[in-house]
């Protein structure tokens, strides 16, 4: 049934508010504020999400770039390592084994036998293992080596009587530094 809408009250904004009901108007305003607030919140969340996505994308791009750089660096490092290995191998190959051996061997008489000859191309250190008939021969050999100009700081690091041999020779080890660069 419809309302009989007869109203003698002056039509003012307050009258309209009272007729609609203060509580319903307040609730409507609260609902409106909530809707607006929700809209703002959703908008802010969208903006933040968009920002995060952009940031994430940038980070991903940066990560990809870094990974790419790392791959390049790794490749370069690998290339450098290979280069160093090649250089080392080249240095080893270019070492004048024959001349060195001849220099050391020339000081050895028939009483001294050169058993091992280990030069280090990086530190210029040369280790030698040899055997002498007796200690006098060993001393003479060392004195002879000291006269060589190409080596310096020669040291006797170890010596012992080799009991496994019937003539009981003296086995000794020497260290000396090669003076100057190795020939390339």
């Amino acid at each position: 049934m419809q309302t009989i809408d007869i109203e003698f009250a002056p039509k003012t904004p307050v009258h309209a508010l009272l007729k609609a009901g203060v509580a319903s108007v307040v609730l409507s305003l609260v609902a409106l504020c909530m809707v607006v607030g929700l809209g703002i919140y959703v908008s802010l969340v969208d903006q933040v999400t968009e920002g995060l996505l952009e940031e994430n994308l940038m980070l991903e791009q940066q990560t990809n770039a870094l990974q790419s750089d790392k791959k390049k660096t790794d490749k370069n490092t690998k290339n450098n390592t290979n280069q160093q290995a090649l250089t080392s191998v080249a240095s080893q190959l270019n070492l004048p084994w024959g001349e060195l051996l001849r220099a050391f061997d020339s000081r050895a008489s028939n009483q001294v036998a050169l058993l091992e000859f280990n030069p280090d191309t990086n530190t210029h250190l040369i280790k030698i293992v040899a055997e002498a008939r007796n200690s006098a021969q060993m001393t003479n050999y060392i004195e002879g080596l000291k006269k060589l100009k190409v080596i310096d700081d020669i040291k006797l690091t170890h010596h012992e009587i080799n009991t496994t041999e019937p003539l009981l020779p003296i086995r000794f080890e020497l260290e000396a530094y090669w003076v100057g660069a190795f020939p390339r």
Partner: protein
Amino acid sequence: MLKWIHSNLTISLSSQAFVLHQHTRWWSKTSQLVTQNLAPAKTVDHFQSHCEQITRAIHLNNLTGCATTLVISDELVRQWVVEPPQNVESLDDLKAAVSARFQALYGDSPAAWQIEADWKTDRPFLASAIPKNLAVALDGLAKKCQLEWRQIAPHSVMLFNRWRNILPPNTWMVTFENGRLSLTVTNAQRVVGAYRHISCEASEIATEQNFIKLLNREALRMNLPSPKQVYFPRIWTEFNWLQHTTDKNVSFNVLSIIYPDVISLVPAMELASSGA
């Protein structure tokens, strides 16, 4: 300040008395009822005198600034039904039809009356008028007491609006006030189809049979079939026979008995009408 947001005042005004009923909402439910007889007017404009007495009572009881509903007794109001003219183009056409009908019914010029209506273009609608000096006096009352009007309407209109959702189609609703009957008839579309506001003798409503005769006479005047279902908002003392009805052709129903939990919207009006 802004007392009208939480504090309601209902003023019920009849020709003999007024009632102030104040009640607050929400957090503090308090109620205050002030009933006062209207003193004889000392001036020619008796509505001005009535409103001055109401103003004093409002100030005395500290009821200023409230949201206010004014229930005007039907005896102070003229009400009639208007058939809208064909080919209505604007509200002015309806206003002209209402004024013409007013003049034809009452023989007075509508200039001295403030007319309001439930404007409809497709079916008959109810119109009401209050004297313009009453409207002016009410304006002065609102200004002096800082009242904010929520509603100003006739008593029978407020009662009908209160019970309108409960009324079935093709029924008569009867309201009674100080020797005057208001008959509101709803049609099959459940809207007001006809309305009569009449004075009646005590004998015409004293018994069930007499009242049925009165209803049948009014039905003839309104060119309607005899009523089958009649609803009363409550039992007035003049209608005590409603408690023991015998007629099988007419069904009398009292809404306050059928729906005891529904509180009457304007209880103070009964006091004002009785001139207590």
